[in-house]
């Protein structure tokens, strides 16, 4: 019960914490301030949000593939970023940002069953974060990891507990806010996500797990991933995006930043399994230091439309990245990925293999670029995208690209293929007793095998296999 105070007191209380009615499409400046205030954020974060908001307002939403708004990006290599993805059916005002209040973070909608299963199967010796509809539901980290100095917490908590780390890394090094409208939207309205900091020399044997779910209609997930692996550290992160059910519309507008310091080894596995009514936008960028390694597995199975930018910056001599992609589309899914292997330093190596299987009337775009800067002498870069079409109505656009500005000891190999399933292969397998469907399934499994065999986590492989089987059976 409230005691009645004076009018002045009451109004000042309201002003300091005004009730905010969440409305679909309210991506306003006021809402930015509201988020910052409810989260009690430091001033610099509020200022960054507002600066991002200005960029967001300035940049147009790329309307049609024919309009030149897709050209309006600041960076040369993503000039045709929106060219092959039609955003006309996308209506931002159907989605609403999360209005977090301290009470909301404790409650919210019940967890979807898929998430409950994940929670019960958790291993006690690792760490995990579960987030639903933009609200963090569970944060856990094994004690011995904490003792070693590992920091793993949701971003809002991290802002309070590790402000200097967030301030120096959050959208300052890997993902800038001004590359496209959705990055700016993220910079202004981001909520949730996590900070992982692995201190110098610390090696984590067991993967950390992150589950991000959307379950309420019209919700937007704007979670931010920031991984900071200090010198000589080693860590594996498995981040999964999923929907509570099959027909709830949703929007994900995310950013992933991975900073791999000298000699560090990071494995980052992203499993995207949104339902077919979710729009997925994300810029994901890693910066890899001297003699450091990143193995990046990216599996895209879900979403209605997805536009993804995945970049690896080979920033110092001896750095290495392996980028593996496993994509399976069906129905009318449209998945559009830009990849970028950015060789800025000498003696750097990158190895990219993306494999896509397409069913029904789905479409995939892969535009890859290997960019060897003048300083990137002795680069060894590989890039390959293969597409297997299970339907005459599916369409794949593989677009490999090279830009080589160094001249000494460069080895760059790239290629792309797209084609239907080989009838001779089907006949061969059927002649051995396999049904037509079983033959097709086996050929698809074989097609994904070169990616699968390079995924070291058995749990990830079996999870992917389940998803693939499920898609094939549809």
């Amino acid at each position, binding site marked *: 019960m409230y005691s009645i105070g004076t009018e002045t007191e009451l109004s000042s209380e309201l002003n300091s914490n005004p009730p905010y009615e969440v409305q679909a499409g309210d991506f306003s400046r006021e809402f930015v301030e509201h988020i910052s205030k409810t989260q009690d954020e430091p001033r610099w974060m509020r200022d960054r949000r507002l600066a991002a908001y200005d960029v967001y307002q300035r940049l147009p939403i790329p309307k049609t593939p024919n309009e030149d708004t897709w050209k309006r990006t600041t960076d040369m290599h993503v000039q045709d970023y929106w060219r092959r993805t039609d955003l006309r059916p996308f209506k931002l005002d159907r989605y609403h940002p999360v209005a977090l209040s301290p009470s909301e973070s404790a409650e919210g909608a019940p967890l979807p069953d898929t998430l409950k299963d994940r929670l019960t199967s958790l291993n006690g010796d690792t760490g995990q974060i579960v987030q639903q509809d933009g609200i963090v539901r569970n944060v856990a980290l094994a004690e011995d990891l904490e003792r070693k100095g590992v920091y793993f917490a949701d971003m809002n908590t991290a802002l309070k507990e590790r402000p200097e780390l967030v301030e120096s890394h959050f959208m300052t090094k890997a993902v800038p806010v001004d590359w496209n409208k959705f990055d700016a939207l993220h910079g202004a309205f981001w909520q949730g996500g996590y900070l992982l900091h692995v201190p110098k020399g610390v090696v984590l044997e067991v993967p950390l797990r992150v589950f991000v779910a959307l379950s309420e209609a019209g919700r937007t997930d704007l979670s931010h991933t920031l991984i900071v692996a200090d010198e000589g550290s080693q860590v594996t992160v498995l981040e999964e995006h999923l929907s509570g059910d099959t027909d709830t519309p949703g929007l994900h507008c995310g950013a992933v930043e991975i900073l791999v310091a000298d000699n560090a080894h990071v494995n980052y596995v992203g499993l995207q399994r949104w339902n077919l009514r979710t729009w997925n936008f994300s810029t994901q960028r890693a910066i890899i230091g001297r003699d450091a390694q990143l193995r990046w597995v990216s599996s895209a199975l879900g979403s209605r439309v997805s536009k993804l930018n995945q970049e690896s910056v080979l920033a110092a001599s001896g750095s290495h990245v392996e980028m593996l992609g496993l994509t399976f589309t069906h129905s009318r899914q449209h998945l559009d990925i830009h990849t970028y292997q950015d060789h800025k330093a000498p003696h750097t190596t990158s190895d990219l293999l993306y494999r896509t299987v397409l069913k029904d009337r789905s479409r995939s775009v892969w535009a890859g670029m290997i960019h060897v800067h003048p300083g990137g002498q002795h680069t060894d870069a590989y890039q390959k995208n293969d597409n297997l079409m299970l339907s005459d109505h599916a369409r794949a656009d593989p677009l490999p690209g090279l830009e080589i500005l160094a001249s000494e000891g460069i080895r760059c190999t790239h290629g792309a293929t797209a084609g239907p399933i*080989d*009838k*001779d*292969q089907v*006949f*061969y*397998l*059927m*002649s*051995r*007793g*396999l*049904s*037509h*469907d*079983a*033959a097709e399934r*086996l*050929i698809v*499994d*074989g*097609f*994904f*095998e*070169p990616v699968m065999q390079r995924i070291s986590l058995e749990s990830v492989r079996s999870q992917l296999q389940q998803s693939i089987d499920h898609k094939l059976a549809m």
Partner: protein
Amino acid sequence: MSTELVITDLHVSVEDQPIIKGLNLSIKQGEIHALMGPNGSGKSTLANTLMGNPFYTIDSGEVTIGGVDILDLEPNERAKLGLFLAFQYPTAIPGVSMANFLRMAVSAVRSESSNGSDATELIPMREFRRELRAKMKQLGVDESFARRYLNDGFSGGEKKRAEVLQLAMLEPKIAILDETDSGLDIDAVRIVGESVNQLIGPNLGVLIITHYPRLLNYIRPQFIHILLDGRVVESGGWELAELLEEKGYDPIREAHGLTETVAEVEAEETLPSLRV
């Protein structure tokens, strides 16, 4: 009861070009037949047609296994009835391990359901491994074969040995060996021939399709048939093979009033199985 493959007045064409023109042949379990013919006579067409390759058009005729008409059946249904084809050019399937594939194939062929449905239960891993290891040992095939991707990067000889291994595992009633000796050096022919010999017995009927008689030095057939211009023009015993070895196809061709025509050669060149 012995199962029989019976081909009656079979006519097959490829892209409106008749290739098989009224072929008759019967093979019982336990018998070994050789079908010999020059390029363009229709050997591969017959092998592929019997197995159900959709590329070929059946114009008329009948093919039965154990009395069941198979021409309207899918290739996997024919396999379940006990038919096997060792391909001249086995297709590579990258990413699919020999062991994984063979376990699925063996399970499918042995399953009770007749429609080759997907619900086929896999035979237990332990049981399968034991059997595979035993068969590999019997045929002198290296165990590393099991882990390799199906025909992917295999040498010519390895491909043919892989076919024979599959034959051994699937235990068909009737096996067709389509030019199993082609492209092999004499040592490889001997190894493959001896492997097939290991499998021969009262439960296996074999049709060896070949251009040259050299494989027949290792697998001795009881029946020899000469295929010319899409028809079996002569059938007999070992003496026919000796005649061919000595004089080639020309005397037989002349005896049947046939000359090699350009059209036949071209037709064979369009077959997908003949590309290298």
